[in-house]
């Protein structure tokens, strides 16, 4: 099984995640799409690790998972805080940083 197939799958998932990121408005959904993209990256790393026969890729995949977990925690904390303070949970409404 050549690696290319795995990479193709990874790329497809990445694209799907990117498209979803641009389209969805609920912050929760945006985070989900981010997860998709991260996982696509993970798949690609692991595929290359197999190609080279090196376990460093696995280590990095673990670290990516750690980062993803941390990021999810914070992101969901923000969503919860938004919801609690009666701010509209809509990415399009959160524009106070506009220039």
């Amino acid at each position, binding site marked *: *099984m050549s*690696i*290319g*197939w*795995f*990479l*193709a*799958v990874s*790329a497809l*998932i*990445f694209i*799907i995640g*990117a*498209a*979803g990121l*641009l*389209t*969805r408005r*609920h912050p*929760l*959904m945006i985070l989900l*799409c981010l*997860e*998709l993209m991260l*996982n696509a990256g*993970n*798949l690609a790393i*692991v595929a290359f*690790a*197999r*190609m*080279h*026969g*090196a*376990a*460093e*890729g*696995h*280590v990095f*995949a*673990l*670290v990516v998972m*750690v980062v*993803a*977990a*941390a990021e*999810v*925690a*914070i992101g*969901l*904390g*923000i*969503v919860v*805080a938004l*919801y609690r303070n009666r701010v*509209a*949970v*809509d990415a*399009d*409404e959160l524009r106070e940083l506009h220039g």
Partner: protein
Amino acid sequence: MAELLFFIVGPLAVIAAVGTVALRNPFFAVLSLVVHLLALAMLFMLLQAQFVAVVQVLVYVGAVMVLYLFVTAYVGGDADPRGGSGPSLRWLSYAIGASLVVLLAITFIGSGLQAIDTRGAPYDPELGSPGQIGELLLSRYLVVFEGSALLLLVATVGAVVLARRRRGVLPGEDRTISALDLFAPTGTGSMREGVGAINPVPGAIRARITPQTGAASPPSAEFDDGDDDGTEDRR
């Protein structure tokens, strides 16, 4: 055999990803992501990354997705919010997606990635085993390991801070500091006073609570302040 498995699991992963993006109901989207993650774990297995696959299932699916489900239940949000939105990015996103697909096609149909068509590394049973990974983590990638631990700590603290309810000082509750506070007995306003261990209020009925288990177990008294937001007022 591997190919067959791949061609079942691969499309499954893609379809689940599409489901995540396209489904309107957030619950179903999260569940779709769970399916996707499980498919991805299968793919990891196919790539001889068994440890990573297991960790993926345990941590990612087991913890992160559960967290997602909790928050989805809390926040709700049945569908994407209606109403006025910012400038529509539909066409832009299609354009980006299309360009990325084209890129993909070029990389495959073109000969730019000949490197990956050659034979990979030979089969090494040790690859992907926990032992090998553990060894790497604690020798060459120690800093990475510790750093990610620190990152987790920071994230935890941050999550707690973010989700904490802050009410602010209500009118009539302002605490002014006066010089007479110097003459107040020690421990005023502390937790010990709050639980009645020191500075007893004259006329209060003290119910002394002894530790149930272990030495110096903290008293698990609940002081009901009337509302049910799960935090306690300290008086």
